[in-house]
């Protein structure tokens, strides 16, 4: 045995990866935190508020992000993906590809002169496609590192050799079209996977009319729509006409508990629909919401009380039953067609906005990552773990936490992340 490697690689810089990094860093262990996106923050950064306390999501996340970026034991690698893993628990050799940002991180002051001039318009991923961004863009306002990124797929200069406008307007000479991808090789004793989830694309459930009916949107789109830093500045407007919203339907289990798509329960949707309905009412007390559910799953700490409050104080009604389909009327109002459980009769309800609680599915690319890590996935593509060793993957020294192993809410992500940090520390200190 040679010298014990003293560091841990964490893959994924969402709330789980951040928590694992902070715990390990604070234990005095060196951490490499690899995030594929231009900034850490993950899904939690996209949410408006969090249940059941209605804490502003980014407000409670950003101090942790800042701690992470300033921590002497934590090295952030954004735009980075793992490409190869050799060795075994205690002494892995991991190759990481860090994609070129084409912007010098040290020089960019995030003034926005470049993105304002960029002639390219592409859908903004962070805002769930609800607005466009340039090919040079800020991933999001509170992102870390707080610098611009050039998306080379869309940059006119990098694809066709024309433009260079951003370079012309940058007051700091921070643009660098010559930047190359870098290959890093890291020696680590343990690996923690925290790659999170993607929302299921509901357009395959054609009867719900997503993409066909403008006022049928997903939960994640809704989170951006009501978020202060979102595309409407937090004003709840109908996508079709910018009109006022007073009646909202929340459709649960979209792609979840569905043998044609994802047979499992996505765990968090009953509660986030409840939260989203509460937020709508806080934006405008005239809003009434209808949540169409199969079984109301409010088992976590404080959740039943939250639901009771939703019903009592926020004009929210829970209707048991799976929605059959959604159509629209001439005013682009979604019409919800459902079965009324009491009378067993089909019913129709016209609303201003319908929100699909889409399942949580593994992040795209997890399959490839699992192969690189040589860990197994379960039948749904989540990383496989044992019920009684919930943080162990099938490979010793590689641990999993958060939504890459199963859909879970934020506290569960956070505690699993701490747990995975303990497991990694055990490997290093054995």
């Amino acid at each position, binding site marked *: 045995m040679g010298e014990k490697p003293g560091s841990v690689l964490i893959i994924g810089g969402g709330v789980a990866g951040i928590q694992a990094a902070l715990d390990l860093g604070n*234990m005095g262990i060196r951490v490499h935190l690899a995030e594929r996106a231009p900034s850490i923050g993950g899904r939690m950064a996209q949410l408006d508020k969090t249940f059941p306390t209605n804490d502003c999501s980014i407000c409670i996340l950003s101090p942790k992000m800042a701690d992470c970026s300033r921590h002497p034991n934590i090295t952030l690698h954004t735009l980075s993906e793992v490409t190869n893993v050799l060795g075994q628990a205690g002494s892995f050799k991991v190759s990481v590809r860090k994609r070129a940002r084409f912007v010098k991180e040290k020089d960019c002051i995030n003034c926005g002169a470049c993105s304002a001039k960029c002639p390219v318009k592409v859908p903004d991923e962070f805002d769930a496609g609800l607005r466009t961004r340039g090919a040079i863009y800020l991933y999001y306002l509170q992102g870390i*590192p707080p610098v611009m990124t050039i998306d080379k797929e869309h940059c006119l200069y990098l694809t066709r050799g024309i433009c260079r406008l951003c370079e012309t307007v940058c007051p700091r000479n921070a643009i660098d079209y010559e930047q190359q991808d870098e290959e890093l090789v890291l020696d680590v004793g343990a690996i923690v996977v925290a790659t999170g989830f993607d929302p299921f694309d509901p357009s395959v459930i054609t009867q719900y009319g997503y993409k066909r009916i403008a006022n049928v949107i997903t939960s994640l789109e809704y989170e951006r729509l009501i978020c202060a830093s979102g595309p409407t500045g937090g004003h709840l407007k109908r996508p079709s006409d910018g009109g006022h919203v007073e009646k909202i339907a929340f459709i649960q289990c979209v792609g979840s*508990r569905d043998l044609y798509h994802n047979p499992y329960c996505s765990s968090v949707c009953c509660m986030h629909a409840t939260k989203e309905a509460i937020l709508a009412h806080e934006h405008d007390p005239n809003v009434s919401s209808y949540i169409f559910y199969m079984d109301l799953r409010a088992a976590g700490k404080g959740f039943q009380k939250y639901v009771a409050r939703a019903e009592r104080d926020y004009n929210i009604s829970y209707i048991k039953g799976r929605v059959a389909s959604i159509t629209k009327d001439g005013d682009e109002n979604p019409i919800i067609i459902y079965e009324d459980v009491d009378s067993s009769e089909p019913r129709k309800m016209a609303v201003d906005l319908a929100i699909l609680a889409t399942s949580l599915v593994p992040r795209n690319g997890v399959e490839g990552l699992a192969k690189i890590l040589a860990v197994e996935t379960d039948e749904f593509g989540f990383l496989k773990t044992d019920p009684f060793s919930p*943080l162990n993957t099938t490979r010793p020294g590689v641990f999993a936490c958060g939504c890459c192993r199963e859909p879970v809410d934020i506290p569960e992500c*956070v505690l699993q992340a701490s747990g995975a940090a303990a497991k990694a520390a055990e490997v290093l200190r054995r």
Partner: protein
Amino acid sequence: MVEGSDARIGVFVCHCGTNIGGFLDVPDLVEYSRRLPNVVYSKDNLYTCSDTGLTEIKNAIKENELNRVVVAACTPRTHEPLFRSVCREEGLNPYLFEFVNIRDQCSWVHMREGEAATEKAKDLIRMGVARATLLKPQEEIEIDVTQCTMVIGGGVAGMTCSLSLANQGFDVKLIERESQLGGLLNSLHKLYPNNEDASRLVSKLKGDVKKNKRIDVLISTTVSNIEGFVGNYDVTVKHGGEDEHYKVGTIVVATGAEVYRPEGLYGYDGENVVTQLELEQLLRDGGLEANSVVMIQCVGSRDRDRPYCSKICCMNALKNAMIIKEVNPESQVYILYRDIQTHGTRYEEHYREARENGVVFLKYSPERQPVVEDGTVRVFDELLGEELILPFDLVVLSAAMVAHPDVKDLAQMLKVPVDESGFFLEAHVKLRPVDFATDGLFLCGCARWPCDIGESISQAFAAASRSSVILSAGRVVAEPIISFVDEEECSGCGLCEMNCPFKAIRVEETERGRIAKVIEASCKGCGMCGAGCPQRAISMKHFSDEQLVAQINALTGGGL
């Protein structure tokens, strides 16, 4: 220069997206702040806590030679450490930072009265600036950490947590009040979701704990007193009538929960009407003889007394229903439920399988609860819209998970809160799920909230990690917000010693007579000693009378 007369204060007002900016007139607050005494700089930030905002603070400290920083934003609970460390990084003592909470105290509570809320925010900022002017640098207190954790409770959570800490190289005292380790696991037959024998899991854990030299197991032992503070807790335990004392750095609470005894509900008699826990024993002993079994969910859960869902009962009922079906395929099993809780990727298929295997699910509403009569259960099925009469040989009640009755004593000894249902309350529901608000105290398993074994195990590792963070550092830094005795004024009367709830101040004989001395590491800065001091000899560091009076005068226009 940091004395009052030379104060150069910078005020940063946060929009917090629209959390504040959507309701208050932030530019007006910035303008207002700039005109306050000693303020030399003011600025708004979209998010003061973002990297951009923090950089703006740092630059302003440098460029404007600020020696005090006031942030008017959200809550010190989540953000004070961040802003303090930004000050520290720019060479400013972190206690020259003042937080003004204009989100929770203005924009959130007065959402519909933006103008009045803006005026209130001005008052709060003016008060904050007045206090900031008088702030003094403070030196933080460093304390050594005893390299040992006490884990209270030897169930699956406590054992798992102990093992992880021991595997990280730390000593553990594992306290169990029963005569054997294992907790509730000892009473279970098979475990969902894979029907593993509970006895197998528990004996593996017990074996690993016994083998581990770093874990000192104390069975038939209860905690009787806890004193001290992070890094240095003094715990007294009772074992065989004898008191034993241990010094530990951190404490993990893993005391679990118990199953509610549904006395007086649904004809519970422990024979024909039993709990799921009693059914487990029947199944384990092979003593079940019943052709028709009716299970009733939410017994004692989701009602007026216990409004919460006990989380584990649906899966437990499904598992036992399937075992009954397996042992006796001819048997009929009904599950009367309100909402089936089979969350996540593993559990839903058990619900599906149970239905496919002929387990009958009937949904009842809390307004029309099932009625157990002699040999039959009457239930109104909401989905069919009909009342059904089910003959039974055995009724099984899925009784709630409830907090141990002695949780209150432990909570009092630890000085930590419990919620209205008796479960321990963590520091922050979202982001600090296994920490107590008091440093060095952690929590896992059903003492926190009902959870299943997999979740208990995750939480146990989490508590181990959080505990390891403190033990690994070897030293902790405590806030110097503690009391301070003016030895000239102290008469040594000892009233402070009597008033202190933390045994953090005591009168000592000195060359100059009897004088009160503060035990800095134990002092929590509550101010009880100072408030009761007849000589007014005791003041609070960082919350001096002078600072507080200045704050009040700033509000009232003076005169106090």
